[in-house]
Structures are given as structure tokens and as C-alpha cells.
């Protein structure tokens, strides 16, 4: 890992101010002169900037030279506590590239659960910051550049904080904000069902009908720790189906993956004549995966294509302390596709545990082997 520190000595302030108009025209930023002055001055004055997997190709350009390119810096800021934008100009190579800002650290060790994800279509640009994020003078940020092999970054000035921007700076919204992890409450978390997104469904989560072939509901954004999570419980009003059995599938998005069939569970429940269907998808295996603390960001429930009136009556994230109360809500027919699989010894151990889980079978099977061997030996001896 190559770490390069950039330290630059401050230049003469009068000279900088005289350059200001020139730079403003040059970059066509049309930012207030004071902002740019602050940015430039701060940048040149005390940039305790750290780069990783970035190689300088000139005094202002860097090339990605590894798998984990990032820059750690103190963002220059115009107005402490009121900054609403982080402004960038990183060059054309980074347009459309997924970027992440990590904003919580101790001695440059950044917490992965505090980050803003975004993509910029045109530079210069300003990332709109959520109102509840407050950056102080000592705040260190880490800008991660993802999925950008061999591209070049322009770094004439560091990203800086401001409370306003003006055209032609493009204002971009974060595609995702993760502001820490909320532990799951002991008495489980009942999710608000009024603000779920619907796909191929008409109406709201509280009253909807299937309108096309891929019906599903997506929860609002969550930032819940999976450490104490036992599963997700649903209660729905469902119309009568022509089928005797219906499949429901749960997708769960964590900070490591979005919705994918490789991280989903499917269960099969009997069609219910009284119109109420309830079940729980166990997710207690998530805390056994590595890293053990994952963040549940959203869940998605795919429902069978049955016409008629549906309603999501209840959705609940069940804490492990309440797990026993929901065991009878786990259908016998359950298929879990997990991101992380056992290998080596743990695979053998898991296989044996599965076999011995059916104790009646295990005992009968062992007895069968013993009795067969005994008969074999007896028959062999008696025919000498």
C-alpha cells in the first residue's frame, strides 16, 4: 500500500487574492470569491491529506494505482456548522463513478457505518449534505473512489464545505446516507407500513392490488443492526388464490449488498381461507456472517400474483429475545439463500449438525448400520 502525504506551504495571501478572478473564470465555477479563496488558501496552507492507491502524475493530477483508492482530508469550510454542500471538481474521469464520503473517524480509522454514497454526473458539483450532519474544523473526511481502474483524478483544490452554491455548479443528492447503526429494540421494531414503495401494485401498502407480473413492496430506509435480529414478521390480508400454496420471498439489503436473489429467503404457505396470512422469515443467521455487525438497510417482500384486495397489516423486525414467540410463524417450507457459505471444517460440522437435527432418523440409521453389520458378521461366521 502506498501512502503519500501532500504538504504544501502557504503562499502569499495577496497573490492568491489576485489570482482569484482568473481562477473563477478559468473554472467557470462562478462561486462567491470568498468561498474559493477560503478553499484555495486552506488547501495550500495545511492540507494534511493522505492518499491511498493514488499515484501523482503531476502537481494536480493523480492516477488510480490500486484496488482501494481514497483521499483523507480536512475539508476547508466557509461557515462552520451551517455547511450544506461539499463542492468538488475531480475531472471528467470521475463522472458517473460511485463515490463515498466516510465522515466518522478516530485517528483516520473510519467507521464504515457512517458514510454518504453518491454519483456525480458533471463537475464541478456540490453534494447536498443532510441537515443533521455537522462538520467541525477538526472533521476528517475520506473520499473513496469505487469502480475506477486506471482513471485520473484532478485535484487542484480539495473538496470544500460551503453553505451555498451557484450555477453552473451541479447540486447532487446523496444516493444513500448511513449515519450510524441503530440497535434493534428488545421489544422488536414494528415498521410503519404507510410509506412502503410498491412495484406492479396499485394503491398503498395498506390497501393494494396486483397490477402486473412482478409485485413487491419495499420498506423505507432502515439503519438497523442485524446483531440481535431474529427475523422479519409479516401479517397480510391476502385474497383467495386458485393455488393451494403460495410463495413469498424476502430480499434484504445490507451495507454489503443491495437486493439480490443470492441474499433472499422464500417461504411457502397454504392459501388461507380467512384471508389473513402471517409468517416470519428467520434472519438470525446474519449475525453469524462476517462481519457479524451488518446494517439492515431495506427489506423487500415479493408476493404471489393473486388478483384481489391486499393489505400489509403488520411488518415487524423481531428481536432475538422475542424469537420464541414467533417460531410458530416460520413455515415448514422455507428456502434460505445466504451470501456466506460454510467451507472446510465448518461445512462438515454443519452437515453433521443437519443430519443429527433429525434425531429419530439418526438413531434409526445408526441402529440399522449396527444391526446390518452384526448380521453380516454372523452370517459370515456361520458359513465357515
Amino acid at each position, binding site marked *: 500500500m502506498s501512502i503519500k502525504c501532500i504538504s504544501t506551504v502557504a503562499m502569499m495571501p495577496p497573490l492568491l487574492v489576485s489570482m482569484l478572478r482568473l481562477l473563477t473564470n478559468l473554472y467557470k465555477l462562478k462561486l462567491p470569491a470568498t468561498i474559493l479563496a477560503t478553499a484555495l488558501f486552506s488547501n495550500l496552507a495545511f492540507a494534511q491529506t493522505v492518499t491511498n492507491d493514488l499515484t501523482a502524475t503531476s502537481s494536480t493530477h493523480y492516477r488510480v494505482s490500486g484496488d482501494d483508492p481514497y483521499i483523507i482530508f480536512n475539508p476547508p469550510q466557509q461557515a462552520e456548522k451551517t455547511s450544506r454542500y461539499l463542492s468538488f471538481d475531480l475531472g471528467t474521469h470521475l463522472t458517473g463513478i460511485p463515490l463515498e464520503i466516510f465522515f466518522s473517524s478516530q485517528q483516520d480509522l473510519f467507521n464504515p457505518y457512517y458514510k454518504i454514497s453518491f454519483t456525480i454526473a458533471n463537475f464541478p458539483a456540490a453534494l447536498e449534505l443532510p441537515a443533521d450532519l455537522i462538520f467541525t474544523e477538526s472533521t476528517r473526511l475520506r473520499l473513496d473512489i469505487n469502480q475506477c481502474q486506471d482513471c485520473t483524478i484532478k485535484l487542484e483544490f480539495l473538496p470544500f464545505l460551503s453553505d451555498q452554491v451557484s450555477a453552473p455548479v451541479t447540486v447532487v443528492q446523496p444516493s444513500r446516507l448511513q449515519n450510524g447503526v441503530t440497535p434493534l429494540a428488545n421489544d422488536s421494531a414494528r415498521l410503519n407500513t404507510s410509506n412502503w414503495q410498491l412495484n406492479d401494485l396499485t394503491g398503498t401498502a395498506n390497501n393494494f392490488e396486483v397490477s402486473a407480473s412482478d409485485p413487491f413492496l419495499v420498506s423505507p430506509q432502515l439503519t438497523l443492526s442485524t446483531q440481535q435480529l431474529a427475523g422479519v414478521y409479516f401479517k397480510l390480508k391476502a385474497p383467495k388464490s386458485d*393455488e*393451494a*400454496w403460495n*410463495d413469498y420471498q424476502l430480499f434484504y439489503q445490507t451495507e454489503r449488498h443491495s437486493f439480490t436473489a443470492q441474499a433472499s429467503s*422464500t417461504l*411457502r404457505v*397454504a392459501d388461507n381461507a380467512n384471508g389473513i396470512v402471517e409468517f416470519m422469515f428467520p434472519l438470525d443467521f446474519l449475525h453469524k456472517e462476517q462481519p457479524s455487525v451488518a446494517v439492515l438497510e431495506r427489506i423487500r417482500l415479493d408476493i404471489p400474483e393473486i388478483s384481489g384486495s391486499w393489505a400489509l397489516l403488520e411488518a415487524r423486525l423481531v428481536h432475538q429475545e422475542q424469537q420464541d414467540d414467533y417460531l410458530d410463524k416460520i413455515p*415448514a*417450507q*422455507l*428456502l*434460505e*439463500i*445466504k451470501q456466506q*457459505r*460454510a*467451507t472446510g471444517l465448518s*461445512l462438515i460440522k*454443519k*452437515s453433521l449438525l*443437519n*443430519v443429527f*437435527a*433429525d434425531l429419530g*432418523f439418526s438413531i434409526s*440409521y445408526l441402529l*440399522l*448400520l449396527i444391526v*446390518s*453389520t452384526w*448380521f*453380516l458378521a454372523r*452370517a*459370515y461366521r456361520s*458359513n*465357515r
Partner: protein
Amino acid sequence: MHKPMNNKQFLIAAIGLGVLLRFALMPFFAHVDLFSEARRVFYVLENDYLFDNGHRFVVFYIEVIFAWFSTLFINVTDGLFHLSDPTQSVSNLVDYGFFLNDPNIYRHLFFFKLPYLIFDIATALLIWKFIDNPRHRRIALLIWLFNPLTLFSTYIFGRFEVISLFFLMACALQLKYDRVFLASALFSFALLCREINLLYAPFLLIALIDVKDHWFRNAITLSCSAAIIALIYLLPNWLINLTGGDTQLFVDPSAAHPNNSLNALLSLGYYWFYPIVICLSVLAIYQWEIGARPKSERFVLSASVVLFIYFGFNVHSVHYAAWLVLFPILSMQYGKKVVLPFMALFGVWLVLWLLKTDNGVFTLFLAAPLTSDFIGMGYFPSVFKQHIASDTFTLHQAIQLMRSIFLVVMGFFTYRVLKNESNHRTML
């Protein structure tokens, strides 16, 4: 002083170890095809459609009986084998996933394979009875009990080939005792297990001709045998139709049916159809020319070579290779030296399928009943591509190379089976 095993001890030891080995495999391995078969069986049981489904009648009803027997020991999970549409009985991976996660899966697999075990061991006993030479019968028994082809296809892949092979074995045994009509009846049972056995039919009929007999007697024998085979083969479908049953219960009407039905029956690539017809015709002439030999010998030798021709030009599913095992083993009765060709076959079959497999045929997918973590654990073709393949030696070339060697092994087998027996002591 150490006393060598007598014949009976050898039989007990071999069968006993064979059974223990089979017990060890039965509950823990399966291909999704076994679950599809189980769904059809339980569909019939759940809905009392006992007088429907004329497809592979014998195998199916043996499985139905054992599945019913298994319900005495297993509370079948509601909906586990549910089929909303019987014509769509081939399972997808979601349905199979439910089966894999069923707490009773090991019981289901054990009981579902139990008839296979019984017919497998019964076949072993008939082989023992068929071969007279004590040394040859020991070797034949060991090959049958411990060959990887039938072990894989029956207890790992989980298919019913041994039931069909049992009836073919019984047919050959009855021919040995000159019970022609019983042999014909048993042959038609084999036909009701696997349609591919139709390939043997002309060779069975030719084998029934005794050149020392009057032509009229031969004509009567042939006509009666053909009638027995046809009647027994057609009887189930006829009865089902007569009682208003649905012989097409599990047949998907939307599935594409090729125009050339014989070609489709043999599952052949079109360009291989005519070479096989030519080779089989040549074999029929050869069988006519050895007309002075016993009926069973002529049938066993030609039935062996029929499959060498068929597999030499054509590759089917991995478990179909089990068909190759029976008749060459029986040819040992006539002094044929087939041990070395068998070893070559096991080796080439293993390498060919390691290269040729997809994700679910010859991979750890088959161990998924132990834990579904085995699904998608990787397979040999990807290892080959990563570490062995180059621009000049691709996976496709490696498969074609092994296919060619497979054809050579079939040729080797044919040579050993058709060659007149020598007086060499070795069976290699």
C-alpha cells in the same frame, strides 16, 4: 492357518459390504430429478390417481408402493410434494430448495431409494447365479457391487436404472434356462421401465431363433414371444384407457416433440442416427452368424455391443452410463475378458463428466441434502478454465478429446466381447 473364503462366505461378505456402502450413500445425496420423480409419486398417492399414468409403469408403481410404505414412518410436510399442475412436474430449484430444507429429507431419500437397493442387490444375486465359473462370478459380483457407475447413478444421483437392469438380468437368466416366454415377459417389464430397452428387442428375438430347430417351431416361438412382449408392454396403457384413466397425466402438452420419433426415442443428434442404424444392422448379421451358440450367449453378447455402439456415438445424461454395466459383466460367463475395459470405462467416464458437467450434474450440488451450502460451490470446468486451459487447449477441446477416448473404450469393449475366448487365466 488362514483359510480362504468359500463361495458362500464371499457372497455374504461382498453383498454385506455392498449393502453397507449403499446405506452410507442413500440418505445424503440426490439430484433434483429424484425430487421431480417423488413429486409425481406423491401426487398419485395424494390424489388417488392409482389407475393413471402409463409412463414407465413398472418403475412408477414400485416407487408408489415404497412411497406409501414410507408414509408409515414419515409425517410428510404439508405441501412439500404439492404439484399444482401435474404436467409441470419437473421441479425448479425453488421447489427443490424447500425439499432440501425439509427436516425429513434424509428419511425421504432413504425410503425413496429403498426399492433401488432391493432391485440392485437382487440383480447382484442373479449375476451370481448366472455365471457358473466360481472365479468369474466373484469378479462379476465385485464389479456389479462396487462399480462407480451404478453406485453414482442409483445412490448419489438417485435414479431408478437398476430396476430396469434387474428385469434385463432376469430375462437373460431365463434365457439361460431356455425359458423363452418367461424371458420375453421379463423383457417387456424392462421395457416398461425404460423405453431405451427397445434397442435390445430385435436382438432378443434373433437370439430366440434356434438354428437346430424346425423353421415352424422357430416361427411359433418368435411369434409368441413378440406377442407376449407387445401385449405386456401395451396392456397398462390399454387398461388405463379402458378404465377412463389419463395415460398422459404427467406429459407436458406444450413440450416440443420432434417429428422423427425413433430418433427422439434414442435422443440422438441427427447426424449420429444413421451410423448407429448401420452398426446395429451389422451386429444383427453377426448375431445371425453365431446362431449355433446358446440363446443367452447370443443375447448377452449382442446386448453388450448394442450399448457400446449407442454410447460410442452418443452421450446422454451422466447416470445413463449405468446401462453399460450389466451385459458386459454377464459376458464373463462366456469367458470374455472385460475387467480391463471396465477399468478404462470408469476412468474415462469420470474424467469426461468432470469436464462436461454443468453446475448440477457431477458436482457437490448432489451433496446439497447435507447442507445447501454445497450448492454453487464451483465445478471442475471452471477450475480447468482457470488453471489448465490455454488458447491452444480449450475446455471444448478437452471434452472432445475425452469423447474420442470414450469411443475408443467402447471399441475396446466391443473387441473383448466379440473376440473368441482364449485360455488365458487372467480376466483382465
